[in-house]
């Protein structure tokens, strides 16, 4: 709780001296172990700030809210390592000016919360590099191993079953920091590439499109997975895609604010096994 108190006063100081116009953090949620996003503009709001191990949502997507950064004023935000990586991608994809963002980096082991040193995105590059080299043990899903053991028919059946629950609410898209397009491909209806109704075909189309759009961009923050009201294990798809991209192109999403998108950049050493 010391960390939380420290941040409350730090936030007040930043607001008071005008360094930032807003701080994006966490406040208590509807139950004891849930947290909801908090947008702090005043001292009163700063007093609601919570920082503990239950603060797991990746808040970086709020930074690209239309108009938030257009006045060129600065915003501070609480981010876990995955959040910093997605911030890097947003910067690399020209969605925000990273100099406007002050990062309060944190991580947690068990119930304990640690601050990460640094404020500017560039200061975390080395730290993110170390995550790439030594990924935390817990990070690989046991279910992934099971999926890999299946043959294509079994895997298809697995996902058909999972996707059959999809109600096309697009909560995954709404919560994902990478889904910032002004108009999503599913909302384009001339032509209507992706069926909007929630039958098997449309559900497959949507989820496969999303998987490809996140290839080389997903940082595994888990926002989509947690926001899914019907509990489709979306994290599995994206985690597998991340592994493929890392294995094939040595691309670890969100390494820096200047990282080139893996599917748009070409290197001579890229393997070309798929080109005839």
């Amino acid at each position: 709780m010391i960390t939380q108190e420290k941040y409350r006063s730090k936030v007040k100081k930043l607001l008071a001296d005008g360094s930032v116009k807003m701080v994006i953090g966490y406040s208590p949620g509807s139950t004891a172990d849930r947290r909801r996003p908090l947008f702090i503009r005043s001292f009163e709001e700063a007093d609601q700030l919570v920082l503990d191990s239950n603060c797991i949502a990746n808040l970086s997507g709020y930074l690209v809210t239309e108009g938030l950064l257009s006045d060129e004023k600065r915003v501070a935000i609480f981010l876990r390592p995955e959040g910093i990586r997605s911030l890097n991608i947003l910067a690399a994809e020209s969605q925000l000016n990273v100099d406007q963002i002050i990062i309060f980096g944190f991580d947690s082991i068990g119930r304990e919360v640690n601050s990460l040193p640094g404020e500017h995105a560039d200061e975390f590059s080395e730290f993110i590099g170390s995550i790439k080299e030594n990924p935390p043990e817990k990070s690989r899903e046991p279910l992934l191993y099971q999926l890999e053991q299946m043959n294509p028919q079994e895997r298809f059946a697995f996902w058909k079953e999972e996707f059959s629950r999809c109600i096309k609410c697009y909560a995954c898209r709404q919560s994902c920091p990478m889904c910032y397009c002004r108009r999503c491909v599913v909302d384009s209806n001339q032509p209507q590439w992706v069926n909007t109704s929630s039958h098997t075909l449309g559900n497959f189309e949507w989820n496969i499109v999303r998987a490809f759009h996140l290839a080389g961009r997903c940082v595994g923050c888990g926002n989509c997975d947690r926001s899914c009201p019907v509990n489709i294990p979306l994290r599995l798809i994206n985690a597998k895609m991340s592994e493929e991209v890392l294995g094939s192109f040595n691309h670890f999403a969100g390494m820096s604010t200047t990282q080139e998108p893996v599917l748009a950049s070409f290197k001579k050493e890229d393997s070309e096994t798929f080109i005839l």
Partner: protein
Amino acid sequence: MAKIGVFICHCGENIASKVDCTKLAAAIGEHPGVAVSVEYKYFCSEPGQESVKKAIRDNNLTGVIIAACSPRMHEATFRKVCAEAGLNPYLCEIANIREQCSWVHTDKDMATEKAMDITRSMIEKVKRNNKLQPIEVPVTRRALVIGGGVAGIQAALDIANAGQEVVLVEREPSLGGHMSQLSETFPTLDCSQCILTPRMVEVAQHPKIRLLTYAEVEHVDGFIGNFKVKIRMKSRYVNRDVCTGCGDCMVKCPVKKISSEFDCGLGKRTAIYTPFAQSVPNIPVIDKASCIYFKNGKCKTCMKSCQINAINFDMQDEFIDLEIGAIVVATGFQIQNTAGYGEYGYGKYPDVITGLQFERLATASGPTSGKILRPSDGKEPETVVFIQCAGSRDPSKGVRYCSKICCMYTAKHAMLYAHKVHHGKSHVFYMDIRAAGKGYDEFTRRTIEEDDASYVRGRVSKVWLENGKLMVRGVDTLLGRPVTIPADMVVLATAMVPQPNAIEFAKTIGIAYDEYGYYNEAHLKLRPVESSSAGIFLAGACQSPKDIPDSIAQASASASKVLALFSKETLEREPVVASTNEATCAGCWGCVLACPYNAIEQKDILDRSGRIIKSVASVNPGLCQGCGTCVTFCRSNSIDLAGFTEKQIFAEMMAL
């Protein structure tokens, strides 16, 4: 209201034997929007083309489908037909019912059904086609020839003699390539140097040719008619503008025992050197790796000997930017490293040599002044064994293909050996004698019949040294028995392989290559000198193993393609270009990076007071090549490609 004309071609029996064209025409006639649905034996014939024109005029057709062969074959033909009949050519589409249907199916009923699907799908597309106008782009009338071997020399001279500018880039210090290393050339036995050197000099003196030796292509950007090329001029450490080629520096250089690359290791050279006496330009280079000064900072003997101060040890690589309209790639070949054939003893026994080394021994300008002498002791070999296909046609250790030239040069070697060593005896182990070419078979017969070469049909399993003799163990398959021949010298006909960096270079300039690293032609039969990229042509052995006549023929063919391109001031380009939707573009700039032609730029959208509201991607139609890479990349579907719009493709798919 759409009025589509569908013209179903039998292509003789090619389509009609597997697709019931009458049934197809009747079924398609029922499809909504189809005004005409007819079949004919050959629509590409003159009466066929005329009937299409007549149908367009008589029925005021709004779109045309030719259900026939691949669009790569005849799309251009039928678009022209439409244009002549007054219909915008981009309202014509090809339904490929030959390559993608009749040729690949055996069941006539199912093939007919599939042909219906393919045709319907194209009808739905053409209903949504727009009238497009061709885009005109200027052509830079300057050609770049990459490689100064005989193919590059020929291409450069042909283009320059037609009055167009040429830049010839050669990475070695001198022009000449492999041909300058050869002794006499088959089948006429004229001296290689004697016929090549005058052409090298002609290149150097030609007012239309800019010769850049000891230079490499660093980077290629742009597209047909408008390439931007960066050339690295490697530092020679000798000022090419001042040097007179007197050769004093080479005489004085204290490092004299470097194995000469030009002589394939059979001769020596100095650290400051020209590859051979007739080098063009006759300007030496300093081999940095061997030069004493570069090793320990002392020497500069050459600099002291130079009377005009042409030597500069501080010289740096320089870069030249060129605007180029067309490129001829003539980067040549290498011979395969024979080290993999341990059983033949190459590298272990000095008297086992490659065919190229034999060339150096046989040439008057070579290290032995044209005498056939053994590298080990300098004696004349009494018996020479030639082993053909030492690498070629050997899927297990070498390459699968035939290197094409070895049968001929081995026959030539045996002949030259007979002419130079009258009492000598030669044996040639061969798999087949492949001597197809003008005067070629006569030449090999002459070697066998007049010059007494003994040809043994079979492979060699092993070469070993016994009592000072190289024992060659092989099989005579015609007699069905093993043979062992004691020899004084063994010559291996090593395989021709692509240059070691061929694939890397192909990626630099953006052309396709095959599994070996040879550059792919656009069509093996119909477009053998065009590469896969428009405006880049191929000449010589970089495409496949070739002898001198073939290389020269292809070089001249490439030159004629370049000249055809340069015959007009502007180039008419297909209007198949991308455009962006500014309202939905998210400005992630992935397309800018993905575009291989740098055709997409950032465009700021301003409000009335000049403030940037947002930045979006914008395509420059002059640069866009219509490849569609950006379309597939764009996550928000904010890019569309004229002629292949999403609506068209969606309709095509939905018709299936």
